[in-house]
């Protein structure tokens, strides 16, 4: 069993598992942190951004000044943002049989895989994953396509030139493989290859393995996967949560007894407790708004935003914020808010029961009804006429490089009354803010990541007891900035095996058994003999048939009647030679009784010696030695075949034959 690791990002995994002649891709996350190296895409012409000075080398050489711009000491690529794709060279991706998607954040690279690698398999995902994943992709494509940028920088990617650039551009990995965003057409084509699955549904892959999605508790429709054969079980845990938020709780029990557990997608901010962060979010929001400032929340159109809106629903009245408008701006805002309400079966129990009341599961419906929350596809249109301040705006993209958020940053950045609150943990907020410096507005970092933290992981591992744990290398040591925090790493026995980008891992896992079916008529013909109480044996003569990874024992064809040799035997009709089999023996020889029997049969002067493995019975007169061990008995005598046969028969008397 081998694991090919195509992504270096622990929360945006992309791995390929080769297991029992199947090739399974586990997630295809897209690392978007590469976009932080680019200048933001403003919705309207920004004089500030367009007047940024070009960057020139130390020696004054300014040949890159068209591609690279300098802002507050940082250098940015002035081009359409590009994304860092999973490795495509490590394994031929056209051989991938299936792709299993665990949640909508982990499928963003799907069009690159399905459309450009010759992939011809099937993708499996739950319905909410597909629908919300589609929304995320749609939003991404929309954000980038609506502000077309003529310039595409490529000069800086030249390895010799990249070396000369300042950090972090200098250290960016595999920039040559960075790609521009896919198109909507590619998105649609990729999504059409997805087959929808439900939790606990068992999907057979070529008869070799069975894959099953389980609820992972992290997001709507998010799943962990079990990949199992009859005797082996691999669990793939990706983006799971034990907190009670909106999705269905995590199914832990089904992960038990795994031979290998691949663990990815833990919380990116293990030191921040989501509850504390939500409190912080609310407090800072109230403080800003009460002082007459606006609050900007860069976010994805689905996920944590549902929980934030629910918290605010409870909080705004107590904080006296009932009159403050909340705006949610995204090309997919409407679909996201509505979708969340219809995926009842994927929600936690509390919310499911609301559906039968009938009541919308999420309270944002009420916020919308009472006009406290308004949503718009973009800044243009209705929003500009409804817009009043102070207000709270939820909008994307959390990288601050594209989307409506860019406009609000430009608009509100100059006033210290306003606050930007970062809740998405995927991007470093300082890097996200870099092209907006100097900035007067307050910045609050409240990353809310509900995925498992290390304490929860260690409890989970104790409970499900996998034989081996495999995880990204980042999880096997404390974060570099907090090297003393031994609690911020996976601690398990045996130690977890780690992987990194572009690495192939041989999993410590040997196939020992196969399940074989016996045809009924063959089984009928068996005559088991009880060897020990509870254990019966029977000898079988059969033909082993293997097809589609299933093995069947069929009755051997009857010995062919001697035909006049007119027809040539076909190869397939070859029967294995059925020799007359010697009976199989079982049991053990009780030495004392054996000696008595020997004496009865006229042997005298018998000596018994104990050896490490059994006994040696010495017939001194006959100069013969009988070596009795657990699994073998040897009669050593000098060319006296008669004696040997006699002794053999005496030995055989003590054993069972079948």
């Amino acid at each position, binding site marked *: 069993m081998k694991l090919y690791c195509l992504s270096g990002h622990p929360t945006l995994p992309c791995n390929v598992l080769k297991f029992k002649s199947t090739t399974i891709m586990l997630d295809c996350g897209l690392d978007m942190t590469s976009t932080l190296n680019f200048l933001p895409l403003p919705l309207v012409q920004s004089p500030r951004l367009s007047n940024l000075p070009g960057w020139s080398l130390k020696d004054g050489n300014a040949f890159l000044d068209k591609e690279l711009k300098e802002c507050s000491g940082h250098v940015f690529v002035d081009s359409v943002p590009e994304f860092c794709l999973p490795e495509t060279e490590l394994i031929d991706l056209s051989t991938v049989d299936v792709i299993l998607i665990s949640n909508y954040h982990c499928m963003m690279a799907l069009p690159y895989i399905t459309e450009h690698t010759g992939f011809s398999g099937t993708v499996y995902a739950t319905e909410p994953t597909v629908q919300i994943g589609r929304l995320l992709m749609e939003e991404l494509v929309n954000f980038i396509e609506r502000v077309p940028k003529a310039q595409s920088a490529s000069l800086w990617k030249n390895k010799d030139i990249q070396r000369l650039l300042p950090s972090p551009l200098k250290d960016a990995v595999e920039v040559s493989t960075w790609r521009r965003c896919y198109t909507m057409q590619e998105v649609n084509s990729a999504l059409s290859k997805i087959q929808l699955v439900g939790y606990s549904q068992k999907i057979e892959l070529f008869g070799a393995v069975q894959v099953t999605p389980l609820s992972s508790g992290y997001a709507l429709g998010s799943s962990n996967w079990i990949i199992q054969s009859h005797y082996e079980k691999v669990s793939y845990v990706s983006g799971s949560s034990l907190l009670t938020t909106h999705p269905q709780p995590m199914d832990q029990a089904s992960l038990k007894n795994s031979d290998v557990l691949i663990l990815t997608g833990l919380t990116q901010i293990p030191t*921040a407790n989501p509850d504390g962060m939500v*409190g912080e979010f609310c*407090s*800072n929001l109230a*403080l800003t708004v009460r002082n007459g400032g606006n609050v900007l929340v860069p976010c994805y159109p689905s996920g944590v935003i549902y929980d934030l809106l629910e918290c605010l629903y409870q909080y705004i009245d*107590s904080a006296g914020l009932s009159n403050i408008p909340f705006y949610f701006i995204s090309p997919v805002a409407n679909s996201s808010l509505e979708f969340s309400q219809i995926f009842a079966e994927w929600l936690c129990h509390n919310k499911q029961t609301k559906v039968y009341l009938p009541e919308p599961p999420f309270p944002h419906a009420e916020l919308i009804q009472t006009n406290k929350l308004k949503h718009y596809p973009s800044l243009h249109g209705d929003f500009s006429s409804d817009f009043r301040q102070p207000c709270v705006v939820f909008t994307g993209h959390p990288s601050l490089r594209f989307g409506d958020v860019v406009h609000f940053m430009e608009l509100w950045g100059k006033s210290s009354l306003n606050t930007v609150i970062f809740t998405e943990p995927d991007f470093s907020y300082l890097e996200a803010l870099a092209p907006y410096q100097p900035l007067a507005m307050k910045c609050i970092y409240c990353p809310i990541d509900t995925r498992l933290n290390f304490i929860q992981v260690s409890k989970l591992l104790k409970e499900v007891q996998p034989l081996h744990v495999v995880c990204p290398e980042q999880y096997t040591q404390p974060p570099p900035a907090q090297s*003393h*925090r031994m609690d911020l790493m996976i601690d398990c026995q045996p130690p977890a095996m780690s992987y990194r980008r572009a690495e192939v891992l041989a999993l410590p896992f040997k196939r020992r058994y196969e399940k074989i079916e016996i045809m009924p008529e063959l089984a009928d013909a068996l005559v088991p003999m009880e060897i020990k109480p509870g254990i019966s044996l029977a000898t079988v003569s059969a033909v082993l048939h293997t097809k589609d990874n299933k093995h069947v024992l069929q009755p051997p064809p009857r010995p062919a009647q001697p035909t006049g040799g007119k027809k040539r035997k076909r190869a397939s009709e070859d029967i294995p030679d059925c020799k007359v089999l010697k009976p199989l023996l079982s049991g053990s020889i009780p030495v004392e009784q054996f000696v008595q029997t020997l004496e009865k049969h006229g042997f005298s002067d018998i000596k018994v010696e104990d050896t490490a493995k059994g006994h040696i019975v010495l017939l001194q007169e006959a100069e013969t030695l009988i070596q009795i061990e657990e699994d073998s008995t040897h009669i050593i005598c000098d060319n006296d075949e008669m004696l040997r046969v006699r002794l053999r028969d005496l030995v055989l008397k003590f054993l069972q034959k079948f």
Partner: protein
Amino acid sequence: MPAGSSGTYHRRLCEGDGSVLPVGRRPVSAPLRVGPQGSRSGLPGTLRVSRGRRPCARPRRTRQVARSGVGPAAAEGRAAGISSLTMDPECSQLLPALCAVLADPRQPMADDTCLEKLLDWFKTITEAGSSLLLLQGNPCLVELLCHMLKPQDLSSRVLAFSLRLTGVLAAQEDCFQYLQQGELLPKLFGEAGPLGGAAWTSPTVRSGWIQGLRSLAQHPSALHFLADCGAVDTIFSLQEDSSLFVASAAGQLLVHILGLSMPGPAGGPPSLQAGDWPACAQKIVGHIEESLRATATPQITQALNVLTTTFGHCHDPWTQVLWVRLSPLVAGLLEKDPVPAAHSLVDLLLSVARSPGLSSSSCGLWETLAQTLSHLSPTQAGPLALGILKLQDCPQALRAQAFAVLLQPLACVLKATAQDPGPSGVLDGIVGDSMTADMLLPSKAACVGLLCRTLAHLELLLPLPQRPCPWPQAPLLGAAVTLLQLCGGSARPTSDAGRHLCALLLGCVRVQRAALDFLGTLSEGTGPRELVTQVFAVLLEYLRSPDSSPTVLKKAFQATFRWLLSSPKTPGCWDLDPHALLFLRDLLPVLQKRLCSPCWEVRDSGLEFLTQMTRHWGGQAGFRHALLASEVPKLTEQLLRDPESYVRASAVTAMGQLSSQGLCVPPAGPEHPGGQQSLLAELLHILSTDSEGFPRRAVMQVFTQWLRDSHADVAGDTEQFVAGVLQVASQDLDWEVRAQGLELALVFLEQTLGQPRSHCPCAVTPAVAAPVGPLAQALQPLCRVRLFEFAFRALFDCDRPVAQKSCDLLLFLRAKTASSGSLQESRSSPHVASVEAALQRWQAGDQAQPLGDLEPEVVLAVLRSLDLEGLQGALAESSDHVEKSPQSLLQDMLATVGVLGGNEADCY
């Protein structure tokens, strides 16, 4: 008594006008027949109890129902004692029927608290008079006891009761002899009694047996009896009883018997020879010795517990002899590994050390204590060390050893985080103790438990006069700060042990709370400047951290306040020192954020902290400047409309305090003319409309304080203010608001009559000078604000504390006016009569009719006609005093089984 269980007697009283009460249970006649009514659920001083209701809203209960749940009432009866000391004829008449009921297995006594009360009553009678006469006068009692001997299916409760009653009666020697003659005692307590029967399986019976013997064992005859019937052996075996109550009572009985059999203080000098001791004592001591030699820990524990109780309760000379004899055995326990029954051993050693009967030095006690300290694990040794340090006279070396044990875990923490354990030298010698390190590091539970206990012990020790000197203030401060940093994740230990400790303690709320408490207590001492800076830094870290739990945050606020209080002051200036002011500048934005927290506990703690700070430094320029520059006053004002009532209450208090100090920022803009005025209006609005009691109570407290301090808003038109507040308060459903209204009335009254307030308002001080000016004139303002109507209404309030307070107020007023004869009595005027008639109706529960405008003369006349002293006496009685007669108890018990026949017709 659980809150809300105000007792059934009390409920019965509230049912109506008293006419429903059966004969013999009428209230003691009080002037104006005012019954002490009302809810006991809201006792004064309990701040947050559920809101009181008027009794008319209470559902009426039938007598049967009212009597069924007498659990709390029983306790009440015991606590107060039953008044009748001898058996009156009525009771004597009821007793045979009751005994018959008790003896009848077909009529089970549903409620054994009645039996407890009955037993209490018998105890009272026997303590006051002769038990023998009681038995002879009431033969039914002996019959009842004899009845217990018959083989029958008796309830275990009645059997236990009988055993205990027998013990109570036989406590007097003549009665004991009397019962002995009839062979009753051996039959009840010997093998022939329940001891050998099936009833013995019930723990109640076993407990009754022990308690019976405990009461009985009062005289030498009893000792012989115990020896004869072999009771002591049974008690030995009962020490291992499956019921903890029985086992514990057995141990105590042994202690009692030992004390009884040993010579008292008047006896001759004790002898060390066991042969000289009474047989009974020899047997018990022998048993203890045997247990101490045993290998099973439970047996050793029992022996140690018996000894602990003995040395704790008896300080006669023989105890010293006993200790000298047993101490080698006790010391022998220390040689075992692990030390068995360590907790009990610690208790015993401390009990011995505290016993005034023992001269510790001669008994080798100090050596044993020192030995024990070094043998026990740090967890077990902590309580012993604390106990030793609390002892008054104790060798310095032992104290030093004990203190070192106590400090060990903290020294370990300092070492693990590679810090200097301090120059004082106190922690120097113990840092290398590997045992503590082993204790600290293996598991989270052990580590957290040990640290919390250590911190709690040190916190207890700090304020004591005998605390160790020199006190290692700096290392302890360092340890507390380090612990908090470890828990908060800001510590950066470099050693493996430190990292491990960090992983164990991270986010541990228990240690955080204990360390913050301890840090707060340490504020009473001083520390090096850099450490104090660290203290403030870690406090700020906790106040800032989004992960601080509400309870941790509250404690962080408390500790911060204490440290601010202790910060060095410039002589002659009460303002905060420059460092504290700098800290305040960092603190206020945090407080600001906390006041916006979604968690109400956090908002509440924040407001309480603000109130405390304002109270202390509200007048100081530095503080005022910082506070006014922040958003805090504005946010506090907004919290007056918080959805959570506790927060509203705290906001009211905070705003009251801010306003008193002139720290309320008047809202800018033409729509708010005069911010202060609007606060008064807002508070009045809360008082009259808030649905919860806490904010209304808080408003009343603020108003009372404002009136007392002559707050500018109040001083403008005090009468209008008082009249308005009293009017609203009198309508309030919460008794605490009404009681607070009386407090406000009292302040106004004192201010009007021009007298400084005496500490006890009810103290009658006729010697005080008459008020300035004519009395009538002085009373006019009181009449104008309708203070008297408010007070009279409160006098008949359904809640006793309100009535009591009103009574006190009126008594105070009457005392003030008593010396003045200038006012013409107008007792006979028709107005007085009509007021008295109205008061009669009010008392009867009909308070609809107002009194109208009262003239001072009328008020004085009514005041004098009221028997306020009598009323005060009646109110001072517990609410069930009317019902608490033995006769009533007997009737109740008979009624529950239907013997009185009053309820027979109910079935049809």
